């Protein structure tokens, strides 16, 4: 960050340098061109329903458009998450409200935001492509921002007291405190949550790029639209091409962005001693060693850093100011909420009054059906993932082979696989009623598997040895050692999986396929069809029902289980 004189990388040999520099330089040029191209396209005349080419030759351009959309949405999420978490953590008066809001927003499926977001953005820029694009971007944003905001908030809340005091006694300015204490402390949480969020973005890409809204058809050029077009026309070759392109992009992103990011974030660990196994990234290593990036660091990063962290010179430090600015911001926010919430509430109730009791009953039935499906998918996923996860986690050699494979399998967005699965289902003559459970499984089983693997790996060797020494039977071993040992991890996995399953219900219960709509009874299907047909009353009702259901299940089931896991089944070594 700031060692111009004695940068340690100087000592390392650098026989790569020229090639690396050329690559970095090329990457920068390409980046500039990409931004220019995007701007030109966004500022162009609006074409809400682009004609989606079916040739694989169009894929690079589509992948590029999708990537730009994802990047914009992600940056927006990052800024919003940091700001939201910061305000919530430092304003006691609004803290509780803001966190409750986060909790609820997290449980609202992406599609429910669609009509509002889309209409607002198109109204904002009616003549430019930008409006439609922004709509899609904000949509992706609503799917990935909440957990990031929550992560940054809880990081801020858990900064050790003495570090805070060290900043306070030395009178760090607010910006110095932010860049030298708060942001670094939150980085690890942000990086991991970013990965989860962006994966979620890929999951909903198809829904966010191509949809109907009332009588309007929206189709944005991109990978998601390509895949969906291929699926709805039953073009198997197209599906395979699209899927291949998406996997290629995801794998590239993982290698070029996320792995370097994880390796870089290692330095923000709070540990006091150096750990033996650090994540390494050859890309990060190359970047650090290149002339160009060093030049950027020296000319741009360091001066900026210096500007941010250094206070203006002063003789005697001033007596501490009261935080009036933060207080004003909090008060304004609270006031805005106090006006907006009742107004919107009245509007919502008026809207819901137009519904018939038949629709209400149908919604409750649909909720029951989706609930059953979510539960079923969790049970099925647990049935195979727990034994498999324990087997992998208990055997280091197997783990070494199986874990990376499972990670690649998990990084493929399940939605992209839907068409393939549906093809199989149609051939077998199955309907979407059962089929949607399989689709949910595709998206959620990994959460359980990964957590169980981590849990099994965390069981201390001594306990395993004790079980062998005392000749535990298989059943005894599972009951007294393995299940209690993995319990906290399993709960985490199940919570994430159930959230994912609810979200997946939207895309799994309602699908445009081979020129017709495949659908089944369910809350997700109801939300999707309400969006398609522009029935905002029904959309609102089903969204409220789903959010209520998710929040209630969290409170009634997952939170007590979490507490039990934390108090009784924590393995302290």
């Amino acid at each position: 960050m700031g060692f111009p004189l004695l940068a340690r990388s100087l000592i390392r040999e650098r026989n790569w340098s020229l090639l690396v520099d050329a690559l970095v330089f090329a990457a920068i040029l390409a980046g500039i061109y990409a931004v220019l191209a995007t701007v030109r396209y966004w500022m162009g005349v609006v074409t809400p329903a682009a004609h989606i080419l079916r040739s694989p030759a169009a894929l690079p351009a589509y992948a590029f458009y999708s990537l730009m959309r994802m990047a914009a949405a992600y940056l927006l999420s990052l800024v919003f998450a940091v700001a939201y978490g910061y305000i919530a953590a430092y304003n006691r008066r609004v803290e509780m409200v803001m966190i409750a809001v986060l909790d609820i927003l997290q449980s609202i499926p992406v599609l429910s935001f669609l009509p509002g977001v889309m209409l607002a953005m198109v109204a904002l820029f009616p003549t430019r492509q930008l409006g439609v694009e922004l709509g899609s971007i904000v949509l992706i944003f609503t799917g990935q921002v909440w957990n990031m905001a929550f992560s940054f908030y809880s990081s801020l809340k858990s900064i050790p007291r003495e570090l805070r005091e060290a900043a306070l006694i030395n009178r760090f300015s607010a910006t110095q405190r932010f860049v030298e204490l708060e942001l670094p402390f939150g980085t690890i949480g942000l990086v991991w949550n970013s990965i989860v969020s962006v994966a979620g973005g890929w999951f909903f890409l198809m829904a966010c790029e191509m949809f109907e809204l009332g009588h309007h058809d929206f189709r944005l050029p991109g990978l998601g639209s390509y895949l969906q077009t291929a699926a709805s026309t039953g073009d198997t070759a197209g599906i395979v091409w699209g899927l291949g392109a998406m996997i290629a992009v995801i794998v590239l992103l993982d290698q070029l962005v996320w792995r370097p990011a994880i390796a870089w974030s290692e330095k923000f660990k709070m540990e006091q001693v150096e750990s033996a196994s650090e994540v390494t990234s050859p890309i990060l290593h190359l970047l650090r060693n290149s002339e160009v990036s060093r030049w950027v660091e020296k000319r741009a990063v360091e001066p900026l850093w210096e500007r941010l962290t250094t206070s203006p010179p002063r003789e005697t430090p001033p007596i501490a100011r009261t935080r009036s600015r933060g207080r004003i911001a909090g008060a304004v926010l609270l006031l805005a909420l106090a006006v907006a919430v009742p107004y919107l509430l009245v509007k919502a109730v008026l809207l819901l009054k137009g519904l018939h009791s038949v629709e209400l009953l149908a919604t409750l039935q649909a909720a029951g059906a989706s609930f059953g499906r979510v539960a079923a998918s969790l049970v099925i996923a647990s049935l195979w993932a727990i034994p498999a996860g324990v087997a992998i986690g208990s055997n280091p050699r197997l783990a070494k082979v199986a874990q990376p494979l499972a990670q690649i399998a998990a990084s493929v967005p399940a939605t992209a696989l839907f068409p393939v699965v549906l093809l199989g289902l149609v051939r077998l003559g199955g309907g979407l009623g059962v089929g949607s459970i399989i689709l949910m499984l595709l998206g959620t089983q990994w959460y359980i598997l990964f957590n169980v693997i981590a849990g099994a790996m965390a069981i201390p060797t001594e306990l395993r040895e004790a079980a062998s020494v005392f000749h535990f039977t298989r059943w005894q071993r599972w009951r007294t050692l393995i299940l209690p040992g993995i319990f906290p991890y399993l709960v985490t996995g199940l919570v994430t999986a159930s959230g994912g399953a609810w979200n997946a219900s939207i895309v799994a219960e309602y699908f445009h396929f081979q020129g017709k709509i495949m659908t089944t009874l369910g809350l997700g299907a109801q939300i999707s069809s309400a969006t398609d047909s522009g029935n905002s009353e029904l959309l609102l009702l089903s969204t409220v029902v789903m959010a209520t259901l998710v929040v209630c299940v969290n409170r009634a089931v997952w939170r007590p289980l979490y507490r039990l896991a934390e108090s009784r089944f924590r393995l302290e070594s």
Partner: protein
Amino acid sequence: MTPAAEPIIEARAIEKFYGLPHARIQVLAATDLTVYAGEILALLGPSGSGKSTMLRMLSGLAAPSSGQVLWHGQPVVGPCPNVSIVFQSFALFPWLTVLDNVEAPLKARGIAATERMKRALRILDSVGLDGFELAYPKELSGGMKQRVGFARALVVEPEVLFMDEPFSALDVLTAENLRSELLELWDGKKMPTRAVFIVTHNIEEAVTLADRVVVLGKNPGHVRTDFRIAMPRPRDHQDPRFVETVDYIYRVLTQPDLAPAPHPEPEAAAVAAGPARGKYPMMPHARPGGIAGLLELLADREGRDDIYHLADDLAFEIDDLLPIVEAASLLGYINVKEGDAELTPEGKRFAEAGILRRKELFRVAAERVPLIRQINRSLANKADHSMPADFFHDLLDEHFSEEETERQLETAVTWGRYAELFDRDSSGRFFIPEEAAQPAGDEAGNR
């Protein structure tokens, strides 16, 4: 040191309490304390006496609930203008290099980059960290980390240097080494700092370093004794005056109820009024196993020994040993006199008994402890012999902080379990185990 030395920080009737005005938990009773120029002041006291709270209020990190802190006669709002703190946990920023860590406070003061680096390198050199500028804290040993902590505190040339148990996270040799280097900087006038305020629980450390020692008592925190040590430094640990001073502090710490006799060389001795004890006596946090160990050890030494010797032989810090001594005395197993612990007949019987007999004896003795007695009675009087934890929480809430209430109950459960009087299930409910229900009732009746 002349008594007319210039005061830098003055605390006037500062108090700390939590909670509502009518049911508040007093952490620190109204206290006056002044930090004078030219002195190293050591603050000692058992855990829970508000040492850390005192440091935070004097440095301006925390505001007192009532009373005032003055910096050169001016009331303080927020951190004092020119002080630094060395923390027990080092509190270094793990993502900054050693150099960046030391430069951070200078940046906050708006010092230009070149000047900043010059000053940081100079101070790193003086604490022996030459060559480690670009290392990250996690690459350093504990002692080296604390050197960075010192460098970061000293680089701003603080007028008062606060230290919060700076050596207690280090091993004995490293701590000794750092202490003597600190004294070298101080006595050699190699740092512009005008006063040092150190919180510690290590009595010898206090006597090694300090010009003036203040001992706090607890429930709520208050000053028990405040005296000067006139011996020249470096001080010889075998010197009779050194040993005598250490002994004196031990005596004060082990007799929490007595107003201490003034120290033989009291210059500024301002002994505060007797302790204002809370209504509810606090249970010392000791385990039955630890108490048994202490009694066995005393039995081996003809039933009597100096507590200072015991701590020394066990390589225990005073903070670890005192709760055990206190617990044994509360149970009537020992008498504490003049820094000596003496076994009572009950204590002797306990030390010589086998496991099962010990539990019986402990059961009888534990009835002397108000909290144990109260829990036991409440449970025995209920038909199903059980009670939710909240009931006892509410009972203690008025007297202790939330955290301390939980600790009190935890200790009570440990004792209750050992005595087989009562237990607590995973939901936190207190209950009398089936087989114990009968005898517990009998015993309560017999007494």
